[in-house]
């Protein structure tokens, strides 16, 4: 039985450590916030200029000056801090964020990631994704193992324009977890969703892994 969206987020959340500063992408990665173990201090960064993202606000707390990078209203925490975009990305690009969890359209066996552009379709832009994959200490991708048409997403080589080259450290799909110890090593299949076999993964993946 494959993991559902929350299951994938919960698996990614196992990589959190006490004291971590973390940036979560839009979509499934956002759900990681709901899976932070009790008693663990994890501080969420929002690239529009905030450390310490709180939950969505109560109706009477809504503040147009307080949004996350997805432009959703949020709330602040006692330990929150605000700063400008130049400082926010100095933090991201300088390697001060411990972990980022992002979605992807493709990840290649060499750690390349594509998640910002489909040629021929309207280009919306990369936002902060290129900065995050280039700068954050550890990059975890959470994505469906296969696209809606069944095609592989963990591939030998990305076919879409890259967001970053050789930057992904770990992949959590609905079927399995792949990891590599450093950017020279190949990905290793380290975990399977309940009921999923190594063979299931083999036939649905074009990337080489060990």
């Amino acid at each position, binding site marked *: 039985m494959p993991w559902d969206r929350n299951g994938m987020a919960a698996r990614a959340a196992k990589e959190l450590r006490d004291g971590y500063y973390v940036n979560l992408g839009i979509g499934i990665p956002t759900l990681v916030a709901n899976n932070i173990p009790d008693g663990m201090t994890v501080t969420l960064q*929002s*690239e*529009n*200029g*905030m450390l310490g993202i709180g*939950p*969505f*606000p*109560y*109706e009477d707390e*809504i*503040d*147009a*000056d*307080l*949004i*996350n990078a*997805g*432009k*959703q*209203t*949020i709330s*602040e925490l006692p330990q929150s801090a*605000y*700063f*400008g*975009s*130049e*400082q*926010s*990305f*100095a933090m*991201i*690009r300088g390697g001060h964020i411990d972990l980022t969890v992002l979605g992807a359209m493709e990840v290649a066996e060499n750690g*390349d990631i594509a998640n910002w*552009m489909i040629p021929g379709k*309207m*280009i*919306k*832009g*990369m*936002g*902060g*994704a*290129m*900065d995050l994959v*280039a*700068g954050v200490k550890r990059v975890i991708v959470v994505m469906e193992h296969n696209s809606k048409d069944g095609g592989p997403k963990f591939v030998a080589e990305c076919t879409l*324009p*890259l*967001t*970053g*080259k*050789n930057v992904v450290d770990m992949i959590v799909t609905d079927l399995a977890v792949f990891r590599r110890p450093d950017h020279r090593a190949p990905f290793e299949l380290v975990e399977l969703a309940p009921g999923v076999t190594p063979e299931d993964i083999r036939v649905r993946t074009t990337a080489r892994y060990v």
Partner: protein
Amino acid sequence: MANKHYRDAAAALEGVLFNGMTICAGGFGLCGIPERLIDAIREAGTTGLTIASNNAGIDGEGLGKLLRTRQVAKMISSYVGENKEFERQYLSGELEVEFCPQGTLAERCRAGGAGIPGFYTKTGVGTLVAEGKEVKTFDGEDYILERGIRADLSIIKGWKADESGNLIFRKTARNFNQPMATAGLICVAEVEEVVPVGSLNPDHIHLPGIYVKRMIVGSPYDKKIEFRMTRAREAA
């Protein structure tokens, strides 16, 4: 004594606008955008603008207003979703767009304002963003050269300023307003309130007055929210 406090946005922009100029605009989405100054530029009808701004507004809001009137020739942005008119002009070739990673955009504007014509970054290495850019290896890793951005004008939105132009922002409305303010030859700020000098703690100033050449009070603001999210209160 030098007076920076102008009557309204039109007055604050007088003598500053010209066709084909480059503008750095603060804001993230619709949060912390210089609404009054955008309106005044629309009224002035200045055309052929190159605008560096993280986003391009949405239809009929923010910089979307200047797109609708076709005053913009080129955008330098990291993300331009949520904007049908933008999409139409872009796909028809009327509007030029330079996509720039968000952190690179913030750093390029800070650099421009700090006298740095170029810097190296890992962001975008090996991607479309690196095309045509110098690659240099430092300590065994590749980096690309990005250029500082200097603009003819910066338009920003702050929360409060004192009469000398010292300015503070509020929460995440700070965002790009800080680096954008430094990149322009002239920076015009709109704020919610101007207070007498001495009202702000000198340790709390986010943008020292040296950067703010002209300012206006733009209140009252009807701040728009793109995605209104809430949670329910637990029953008592």
